[in-house]
């Protein structure tokens, strides 16, 4: 949380009149909606969420045990803001942007309360190189210089969007702290490396357009069947144990975004620890640098205070917008938006608001769409392009997709990766159900795939979809009469679709090679299966019995392409072997 200016402007104090869990009521407080306040003797951070006459209702971001009526409430007069500046990458924050490593240093392994820490280190110095000279005219959003933030990312220092802009009078290069002015304008405005921004307000842009480049995920089923665009939105709903978190983490690891903001919202502590331990070790497939060098983590685990869970998605998206404003492609993962919605429900019920569906507040749908609408491909204030792609996990109770959070999310997002408990039980991962999932970006993105991967990408994909569709129809018959009762060509179709499922759709997130599959390889594997399909049907037409085709030795090697590093020669040899063997059958 931004605090450097927050404490200077203290307004009228109030007094606590009631406490119930994270909701505190106070009187005598002159505050505006969404002002940040410090509650009680310990100064617990809270936010004003309701004003009724003299009575102000506050949601408190920390545990309220022991807080008494009569204790003071202090208003900062500012809404909840985040600090934006160099040092956010390679960091891990709680839901109100307090750095967890700093908190650990202050209060030990367990999170105590009433401790505040700035979101970025105010004492650290950074090497600033100006990109403007004296006499240049700059406006809001313009880049005035760069700071090497991590080995992967140059942090671009911008004129804050709420400045007027003007002519550069002074541009300093050298080492500065984040609050020292690096560029001074003739309007009297001073640009420093640190900005503040209220989290609940989207940072301004000029325009938003339809995305036309894919966010390459390195996952075959996602790139191959259900792609997401840079600037797109996607939802991953699934019951527990179906692999939401693994899918989200794979995206965070391998997606070809410049910056990744990963929000662990109300999820498990150990999962965040896994990310903290893994990401500094793992290389970014694009740059080879550690993944952490492009990642900002926000962790509000399920046992951390519920109000901070409500705010953590806003903190995350504001940080994402800041990097977008530099012209980067940002991917934001929110795991899980259901926990966020539940936090809203919990606060709403403490306020005794009239509930909507399943106890969720009536404004659930509005909040969800406001959040997802902050994604997109934008023309920035400085004329450049930048994008935010948002992928939200949804945890529907009982795996029932008809519940309000899933349904309201589906009305907004354009890619839907439906996770399936049945597939997960068979250890078919990623457990994305190919019948239920969809992507509305396919048409928009096909030109990119045709140009960059293969001319027949759309046709080959359609072939795979057709085979899978046919399989699910045939499976219904097989359930009744058994496989052997089918005509031979249909038995062969089942064999082909089995390879599509096992060799192509399945991907081992834990295997060193298989966990990242570039689009070219995704194409090659499917191409090899198609080659098998063509040869096998030719053999059948030529009179070979289906049992012998099925018993061929070479085709099962299709299953090994994913885990083979040097796949090109492997595929070539395999296609030759399959062709020779199958042609030998007739």
């Amino acid at each position, binding site marked *: 949380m931004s605090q450097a200016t927050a404490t200077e402007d203290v307004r009228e104090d109030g007094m606590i009149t009631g406490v119930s869990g994270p909701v505190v009521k106070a009187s005598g407080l002159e505050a505006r909606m969404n002002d940040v306040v410090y509650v009680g003797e310990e100064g617990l951070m809270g936010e004003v969420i309701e004003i009724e006459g003299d009575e102000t209702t506050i949601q408190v971001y920390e545990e309220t045990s022991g807080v008494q009526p009569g204790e003071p409430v202090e208003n900062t007069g500012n809404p909840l803001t985040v600090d934006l500046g160099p040092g956010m990458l390679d960091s891990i924050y709680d839901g109100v942007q307090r750095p967890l490593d700093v908190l650990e240093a202050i209060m030990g392994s*367990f999170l105590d309360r009433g401790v505040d820490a700035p979101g970025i280190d105010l004492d650290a110095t950074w090497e600033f190189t100006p990109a403007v000279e004296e006499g240049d005219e700059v406006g809001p959003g313009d880049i005035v210089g760069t700071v090497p933030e991590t080995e992967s990312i140059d942090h671009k220092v911008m004129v804050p969007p709420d400045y007027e802009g003007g002519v550069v009078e002074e541009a300093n290069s050298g080492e500065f702290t984040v609050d020292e002015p690096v560029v001074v304008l003739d309007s009297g405005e001073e640009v420093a490396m640190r900005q503040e921004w209220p989290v609940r307000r989207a940072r301004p842009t000029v325009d938003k357009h339809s995305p036309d480049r894919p966010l390459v995920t390195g996952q075959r089923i996602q790139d191959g069947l259900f792609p997401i665009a840079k600037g797109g939105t996607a939802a991953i709903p699934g019951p527990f*144990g179906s692999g939401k978190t693994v899918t989200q983490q794979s995206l965070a690891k391998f997606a070809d975004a410049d910056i990744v903001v990963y929000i662990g919202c109300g999820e498990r502590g*150990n999962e965040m620890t896994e990310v903290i331990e893994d990401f500094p070790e793992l290389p970014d497939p694009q740059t080879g640098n550690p993944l952490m060098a492009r990642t900002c983590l926000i962790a509000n685990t399920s046992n951390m205070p519920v109000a901070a869970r409500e705010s953590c998605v806003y903190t995350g998206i504001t940080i994402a917008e800041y990097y977008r404003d530099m012209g980067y492609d940002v991917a934001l993962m929110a795991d899980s938006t259901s926990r966020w919605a539940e936090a809203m429900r919990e606060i709403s019920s403490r306020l005794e608001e009239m509930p909507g569906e399943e106890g969720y507040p009536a404004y659930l749908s509005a909040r969800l769409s406001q959040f997802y609408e902050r994604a997109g491909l934008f023309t920035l204030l400085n004329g450049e392009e930048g994008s935010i792609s948002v992928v939200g996990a949804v945890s529907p109770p009982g795996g029932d997709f008809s519940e309000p959070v899933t349904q309201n999310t589906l009305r907004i997002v354009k890619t839907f990766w439906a996770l399936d408990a049945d597939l997960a039980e068979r250890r078919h991962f990623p457990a994305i159900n190919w019948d239920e999932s969809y992507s509305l970006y396919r048409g928009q993105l096909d030109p990119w795939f045709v140009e960059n991967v293969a001319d027949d990408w759309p046709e080959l994909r359609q072939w795979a979809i057709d085979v899978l569709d046919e399989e699910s129809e045939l499976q219904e018959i097989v359930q009744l*009469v*058994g496989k052997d009762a089918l005509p031979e060509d249909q038995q062969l179709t089942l064999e082909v679709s089995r390879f599509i499922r096992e060799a192509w759709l399945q991907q081992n997130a834990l295997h060193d090679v298989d966990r990242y599959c570039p689009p070219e390889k995704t194409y090659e594997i499917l191409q090899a299966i198609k080659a098998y399909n063509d040869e096998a049907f030719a053999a059948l037409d030529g009179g070979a019995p289906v049992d012998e085709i099925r018993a061929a030795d070479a085709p099962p090697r299709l299953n090994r392409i994913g885990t083979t590093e040097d796949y090109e020669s492997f595929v070539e040899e395999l296609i030759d072997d399959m062709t020779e063997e199958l042609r030998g059958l007739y």
Partner: protein
Amino acid sequence: MKEYRTINEISGPLVFAEIDEPIGYDEIVEIETPSGEVKRGQVLESTSEFVAIQVFEGTEGIDRNCTVRFLGETMKMDVTEDLLGRVLDGSGRPIDGGPDIVPDERRDIVGAALNPHAREYPAEFIQTGVSAIDGMNTLVRGQKLPLFSGSGLPHNELALQIARQATVPEEDEEGEDSEFAVVFAAMGITAEEANDFINDFERTGALERSVVFMNLADDPSVERTVTPRLALTTAEYLAFEKGYHMLVILTDMTNYCEALREIGAAREEVPGRRGYPGYMYTDLAQLYERAGRIQGQEGSITQIPILTMPGDDDTHPIPDLTGYITEGQIYVDRDLDSKGIEPPINVLPSLSRLMDEGIGEGLTREDHKGVSDQLYAAYAEGEDLRSLVNIVGREALDERDNRYLDLADRFEREFIQQGYKTDRTIEDTLNVAWELLSMLPKEELHRIDEEDIESYYLEEEAAEVAAD
């Protein structure tokens, strides 16, 4: 100490009293009835005029003339290493006739959240000696892995077997003590079930390294909301101050959730699904997330909560919310139980999320991951075929399908079935697995690395099957 005689409303487990000075939220309260009985409670809501108090021992016998004393502090647990070997009631008072507890420290029972940055990712394999767990859903130190069971199923036998057999094998060789200390928290279970646990602990000598908390079925239900917190506070002290590896068994979480619902209803809160409070996820998380390891600290807390799913329905809010918080789940299955399989664990819906970090070369064995994935896929296929056999009969299936059917049967009878007294090492478990996998031709084993197939595939077994 603030003392009042201002009770103006008593409703279910709640008492409302007027006050004239501020009382802290969550503060502990003593209510003395005219007969001299003292009941404890906790402040649920505090305003300038009145407080709402939740009474742990039930409101029976409280009238408007009772004295209400506010102790000025939140609920604490007296902790000391001497708690090992003791049996306490659901509020943490000794009931084993032993000496009074002399506390080393008094700890707030609402444990602070563990900073994710301070955690250490759990990766030490715990050998429970149960093949269905070790082989297919491996437990690691610092994990929370619940048993999803139903009424009348032998989850207690399984929990006892785990408590008895759990070790960390590598440390044995170094001569270190790798046994677990156990904290056992009973919430609303019957006296008979409780006796089974205590007797087994006594018989095996496990009681000496256990702390037992007992809230039985006829004890006040509201007390159940504090019992697991007392238990976990004790476990945290022993783990992170004294360096013990703790195994915490919480049974039965269903009763705990019923108590939450009771309080929510008495407070006239807006209910969530099936009448359970909307904050139940957060509340459960505050218990389950107290499992784990801390960087640079010796001890650990591993949790095995047990819950009985109402109507065996895992979409019921209790198992559902639990599954979203815990790191996997083990299903105790009614069909397998009626087939006489001991322990009747259904591995298909079961899962251990932390398994992958705890297994493999140097931890268990290099083929572990592949074997487990392959067995999962094969058993799932066998299960599918069973429903088909019911319709078309076995003759209509080809040879491959018949092998999968046989494998599914043998998997249940030889791999899962082992009895509650058998302690299998991980080697034993994987060897049984290879006996089964060798029924399939090598080409079918595409989830296993080729070198592992070379090392472990049993040619004789394969030949035998082919001869049949």
